[in-house]
Each structure stands twice: as C-alpha cells, then as structure tokens.
C-alpha cells in the first residue's frame, strides 16, 4: 500500500504541473481562455518600381516599418526575382537591401510584412532628434522666426507650441504662402519648432484601410523630454488612429536607390482576422532566438483531420470526470461504468434530442428482442451476437424510416456505439430478470442522466476550447480524479438511504448510544494501550471460562 503522503504529493505535483503548463501556454503563447478570440493582422505590401540605369549595378535600400507601440511584426518576406536580399540594421532602424548587377527593363520589388495589432507591444524605435542649426536664407529665416515668436507667446509647453505653429501656418497670408512655396508643410513645422528649441521630426505614416496604391502621409512627432506626440500638419490633430502604422520614424528616406531612376514606392494593405491561438504562436516564435524550437504543447501543429479526432479524444476525460463525480460523490447507479460517456460522445454527433430518442428506442426494442432470446437458453457469446445484429437492424430501420419521412436527423443514429449498446441491453436484460424492472429503470435512467450531464459539459464550446488548447488541463483532471478516488465520505444517495437508520438510532437509543460507548472505550484504549489491553484480555478469559462452565453444565444436564 502506497502511503497517503506520497499519494497527496503525487496528486499535488500533477495538479501543479497542470497549472504550470496552462500558465506557460497562456503567458508564452497568449492562448485565450475563451474561444473565438480574433486578432487583427494587417498584411502590408510595399511595391518598389524603378527603371535601372543601364550598365550600372543597382542597390535599393527600403526602410522597414518602425518598431512602435500597438503593433508587433510577425513575419516579413520579399519577392524580387534575381535580386540579392539582405536585411540590414543601421542606427536602430531596419532596412531591406536589394542588390543586382545588371537589371534590364522596369524593375518591381516587393516587400511584405504581417503586422499584428497588439496592445501589449510597447517598444519603440523612435529616438529624440537633435535640433537642427538654423541656416535658412532670407527672407525665409525672418518669416520662420516671426511665426515661431507668435506661437511661442501663445503657448505653454512644446505640445501647445506645436499646435500654435500649425495654426499659424494654416492661416493664409503672405508669410505662409512664401514659406509653403519653399518647404513642405511638415518640414516647415519641424523647422519652426526647432527654432523654438523643441525637438521634432517628420515621420511617415501608412493608413491601414484595404486600399491599393497608397502613399505614406507625413506627420510630425513633437518631443517633450523623452515623450512624444504625433501631430497632423494639416489640422493639428494629435495622436494616431488605431489603423495608422508608423513606417518611418527617423530622418532617413523611405527609399534610397543607386543605379535607378523614376523610383517610386506604393503600398497595399490587407486586413485579416486570425485566431488568437495562431498569432500567439507566431508571436512567440518571433520572440525566440532563431534556430531553437519552443515546445508549443498545442495540437494546432497537427493536420486538421487529426485535430478533429483529438478534439473528441481530449473531451473524454471531462466525461470521465463527470462519471466519477456522479458515482462517487452523488452515488448515481449506472449500467456499465463508462457506458454513459460513450453515449454522450455519440450525442455530440447526433444532437441531444435525436440521441435521446434514438437511445431509448434502440434499448427498448433491444430489450424486447432480448427477452425473447433469453427463452431460447442460448450461450452468452451467441446471445450477445444476436443482440448486436438486432441493434444494427434497429439502427438501420430507424435511419431508413426517418429518412423516408423526411427527417434527415434520424440518419445520425448510426453514430451510436453498437457493441456498447448491445452490452447495455444484455446487462439491463439480466438485471430485469434478477432484480425486476424497477432496478432497470433506475440504472437506465441513471445512465441517461449521467450521459446527458456529460454531454452538456462536453458540448460546451468553452470546455472544448479549453481541453483542446490547454493540454495541462488533462493533468489537472487526472489529479481531480485521483483525489475523488480517495474520497471516503458519504455519497448523497447514502444520506437518503441511511436517513431512517439515523432517525431510528436517535429514537431507540434514548440513553447511551452504542457509538458513544465505543468511542469512550476507544479513548480509554488509546490513553493507556498496554493496561487496557491486559484488562480486556482478562475479561475475555473470564468469559471463556464462563462459557466452558456453561457448556459443561449443559452436557451434564443433557443425560438427565
């Protein structure tokens, strides 16, 4: 016998391992606890087109999407026939670097990235830009200073300064007209901000909205110490919308090309709703050092067909747990220990109502046929085989009949486990003969009740989601089953069974209860095992002598 301590240790270890496994999957792969959680993934494609200069080698350097809060880049690929591709990192920014020695004709290069909208992403590659020295020629310098002075007077901090600058520029007057004829609006704002000793830079933002041939729009990032806010140069709105992706967050150009002319970049964006589980895994893979494989403990790596199979198999422990609970804690009688689980599994295929009707009619007809078979005094194997064939015939009949009258649902009764049903019929029939129909109804009803309970829990999409995605749950279930196997308390049915006994013990033993007397004796024994034992043994000897005398007396009496 294994000691209790070890048992509890193993159970606790299993439980803990299960919890840890669930936590690991939750934390590392961000698997959601509820089903149907979707994540938004934007596929952004940058298309670079240019005409190569004949006889020159071509080098193309394209800026890649910036690292930014709100987005995590999952994957990136390039499509560029005959080009050497490498990803390079320079000054904290990333580029794709295409090279080819002798390109001919119009060249088209593709870069594609999957960006996951991710509220947990907080990293940023944005750095605080230096203030640029003001070396603007006149009369622009004066105009710039003028706007800066006005805006500075009306503002309190870098952000309000930026708002004022944008306001001033938006006013249509000679000064702004002059400036805008030379500078782009966003550059102009940055220059003026720098005049007021505020750090700022232009950034390129891509609108994510399922459109083709988009260009980056320019925005201005205004810095206050290490924080920044993004301003729209046209209307002064701050912040980014959820579907705006910062592509360039440094002062470099989007595209840098050598050996090519008429280059242009256009973007296409595409929205996808992807299950949170797969994006979680893709994201986790990204976080790892390349080369090493992280165990996912997930079955989504399997082919879809096997996944479906496993989904059902992994539900079985839930059904089993319910059977164990209902039998050990509640005390429901079932015919066949795990028959109800198998019936519940077939309910999953047939739907509950059809399943119940099918089950009752098959078992009912089967019992009638079986009662006739029992008159024939057949041997067991032959009898069961006959029942199996009968069950198949009944199932065939039900599906045929229901199909003919237009109830296609009825065809699903073929999902019932026929061998199990045959054994159920056999057992119930024997029970009927031995214990009467009441017991059959009790056990049959109990089995159905357990089956329905198991079905209800197994058909819940939440439970299906949890069992399929968190394999650690199986360990937790195992530990629960072990724990219940160790339960020595009363079953609910016993509280009912022994109620009359309980009442009668209290009624009839008004004085000293036997249980109390024996408890006192137990206490006495435990307090002084040695002497009490000796005393009791002596008492026993006295009795033995008495018995001997009695029997001698009797044998003396008898001859008379």
């Amino acid at each position, binding site marked *: 016998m294994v000691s209790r301590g070890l048992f509890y240790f193993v159970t606790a270890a299993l439980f803990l391992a299960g919890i840890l496994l669930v936590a690991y999957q939750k934390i590392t792969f961000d698997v959601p606890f509820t089903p149907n959680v979707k994540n938004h993934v934007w596929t952004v494609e940058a298309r670079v087109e240019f005409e190569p200069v004949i006889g020159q080698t071509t080098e193309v350097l394209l800026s890649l999407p910036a690292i930014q809060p709100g987005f995590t880049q999952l994957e990136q690929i390039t499509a560029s026939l005959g080009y050497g591709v490498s990803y390079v990192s320079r000054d904290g920014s990333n580029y794709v670097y295409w090279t080819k020695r002798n390109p001919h004709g119009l060249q088209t290069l593709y870069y594609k990235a999957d960006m996951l909208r991710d509220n947990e992403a907080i990293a940023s590659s944005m750095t605080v830009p230096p203030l640029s020295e003001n070396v603007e020629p006149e009369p622009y310098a004066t105009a710039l200073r003028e706007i800066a002075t006005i805006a500075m007077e009306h503002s309190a901090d870098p952000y309000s300064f930026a708002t004022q600058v944008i306001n001033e520029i938006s006013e249509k007057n000679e000064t702004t007209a002059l400036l805008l004829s030379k500078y782009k609006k966003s550059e102009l704002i940055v220059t003026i901000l720098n005049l007021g000793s505020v750090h700022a830079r232009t950034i390129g933002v891509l609108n994510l909205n399922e459109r083709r041939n988009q260009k980056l729009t320019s925005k201005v990032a205004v810095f206050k110490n290490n924080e920044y806010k993004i301003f729209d140069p046209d209307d002064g709105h701050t912040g980014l919308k959820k579907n705006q992706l910062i592509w360039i967050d440094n002062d470099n150009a989007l595209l840098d090309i050598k050996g090519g002319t008429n280059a242009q970049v256009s973007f296409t964006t595409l929205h996808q709703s992807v299950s949170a589980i797969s994006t979680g895994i893709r994201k986790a893979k990204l976080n790892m050092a390349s080369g090493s494989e992280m165990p996912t403990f997930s079955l989504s790596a399997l082919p879809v067909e096997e996944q479906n199979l496993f989904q059902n198999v992994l539900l079985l422990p839930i059904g089993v747990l319910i059977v164990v609970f209902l039998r050990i804690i509640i005390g429901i009688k079932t015919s066949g220990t795990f028959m109800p689980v198998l019936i519940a599994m077939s309910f999953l295929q047939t739907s509950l109502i059809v399943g119940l009707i099918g089950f009752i009619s098959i078992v009912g007809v089967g019992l009638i046929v079986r009662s006739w078979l029992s008159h024939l005094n057949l041997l067991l194997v032959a009898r069961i085989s006959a029942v199996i064939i009968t069950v198949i015939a009944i199932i065939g009949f039900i599906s045929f009949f229901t199909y003919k009258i237009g109830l296609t649902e009825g065809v699903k009764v073929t999902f019932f486990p026929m061998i199990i049903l045959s054994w159920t019929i056999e057992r119930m029939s024997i029970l009927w003969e*031995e214990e009467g129909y009441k017991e059959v109804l009790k056990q049959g009803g109990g089995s159905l009740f357990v089956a329905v309970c198991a079905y209800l829990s197994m058909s819940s999409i939440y439970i299906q989601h949890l069992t399929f995605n968190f394999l650690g749950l199986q360990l937790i279930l195992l530990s629960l089953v072990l724990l219940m196997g160790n339960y*020595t308390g009363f079953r609910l049915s016993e509280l009912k069974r*022994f109620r009359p*006994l309980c009442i009668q013990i209290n009624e*009839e*033993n008004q004085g000293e209860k036997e249980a109390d007397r024996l408890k006192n004796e137990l206490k006495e024994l435990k307090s002084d095992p040695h002497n009490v034992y000796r005393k009791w043994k002596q008492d*026993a000897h006295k009795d*033995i002598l008495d018995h001997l005398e009695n029997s001698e007396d009797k044998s003396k009496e008898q001859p008379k």
Partner: protein
Amino acid sequence: MILDAIISTLKERYASPFEMVSDGIMGMNQRNVNYIGRYNKRNLFPLVDNKLLTKDIAMKHKVNTPSLIGVVSNQQDIKKVVTTLGTHTEFCIKPAHGSGGKGILVIKDRLNDSFIKTSGQAISEHDLQRHLTNILAGLFSLGGKADIALIEELIHFDNVFSGYSYDGVPDTRVIVFQGFPVMCMMRLSTKDSDGKANLHQGAVGVGICVRTGRAVRAVQHNEPIHLHPDTDKNLLELKVPHWLEVLKLASSCYDMSGLGYIGTDIVLDRDKGPMLLELNARPGLAIQICNNAGLLPRLRLIEALTKKHRLTLEERVAFSMQHFGIYKDSL
C-alpha cells in the same frame, strides 16, 4: 423563504452527514477505500469468489462446511455424474462462481432413475445433466465465464428456524474484521423477495446481538417490523442456537482466508451444527440498518487494538461478545 423551504425539504429527505458520522455509519466509499481496499488483498479474492477454492481451504483449516460429494468440471464428468453421486440420495448442485443463489439445484430424494426436487417435482437424469451443462457453459456465472459445478451434501435446517423463513435458506451473516466478529444479522426470505435473501428485494433482515445471538430488531424495506410478513412469527423472539460456535466458525474464516474484512454466511445444520456456506469479500452495508448501529465505532475499536494478532480465536470472540453486544445477559 425559498431557501428555508429548500432546506426543510432537504432535511426531510436526507440525513445530516454530521449526524451519520457521529453515529458511526459506514458509507460505500469508506468501506471500499479504508476496509476492503486496505485489508483485503486482491490476490485473495479468488478464494472467496470461487466456492470450490473456499471449500478447499475450509477443509484444510478444518472449518466446518457442507461436505463435497463431487466436482463436475468438464463434459466427461457430466456423463459420469451418477457414479459420482454414488449412494447419496439428497444433495445440492451449485456453480462455483454463482452469485445470489442462481443455478442452485436441490435434490431431496431419488426414486428409481429420477431425482426429486424440493418442490416435489421429479426430473430425469438427462435434466440433471442439462443443468450441469448449463453451469459449465457459464449460464449462471458472472460475465458468462465457463464455470464448474459443485455437488454438495444437503443441509438440514435446524428446526428452531422453522417459520422464520418463507422459502430458502435462513443464513447468518457475520461481518468479521481481522478475526473479530463485528456485526451479525440473519436474512430471511419472504414472498416479496421471491425466496431470495437479498434485503433490497424485500427479504427481512434481523439484526443479531453479538453477545447472545438474540434478535435485536427486524427490518424489511428499511422499516422496522416485528412479525414475519408471511408466517406472522414474532421475529424478535429469534435466537440463534450454538451462538458461540457460530462466532468461532466465522472468526476462523479470517485465519483461513487471510482476508481482513469479510462477510461470512453461516447455516445451521440440524445434526452437524454451524457450517460455512460461503464468504463474501465485499459485504453490504445494510447490516447496519438491521442492527440499528453503525459499523465504524466497532471497526475503529479493533483497529486501535494493539497486539491483536497475539489473541487466540476464543479471546477474539470473547472480546467481540463483551464489547459489541446489545443485551447484557450472558449466553
């Protein structure tokens, strides 16, 4: 309001588990885990489930049991069954793995070539052989496994029990824990129970005082009764004769089987006294209802007893009689 109603209906239907614990009532889970699981070794179960093995060890340990006339274990034996029977005119055929009295054929006399059943019906030798074939084929055994048939001497009931049983064997069930008789009852069949001694089918259970062998109370369908429903005999006057021998016989089953927690079924033969009919390694809990007492306090007292293996059989029986009796008078 609703909560009160729920609680009161619950109280009406279910006993309080705390009360049951304080009364020492044993539940199924407790029995399975702490007594059967702990004290009955799995490898000893066949000794109990196979009546032939039970009989073998009983004879080896000189435990009184109905003597074996012959064993029929294959088809060839069936043909020779008349030779096996020899001069015995009354006997009983039972399957070794039968349960609940199934497949038992009792012959009380032989007339020329036919056999007379207890009902008075005469059957031919061919009928007898067919019954044996059925037993061998496993018609009466659990799970339909091939079985063997035992032919035993017939038991003649002690006359003290006449009128206490409607039909069938009135047997005494003694729960023996580690060699100590713990609780006893008699099961009397009724018309309701169809001559079977199963309590949940309507047989009468009579709790028996361990000290005196006298009836404590009688129960049918969980309700106390005083008179046998079919014979109107006062059940509370029942007293098992040879009580000391019954207990000693029951007690010796522990030494012989090695099973710590067993139910022993004992019948009283008119001439040969108490005899072991069969053992049960999973005795039921209804005995508590018949005795109006829980098993646990008695079992715990024995569990707490140190050096119990040094006690002799007589000492163990005397201990049980002193501690678990209901009536104070001696035998």
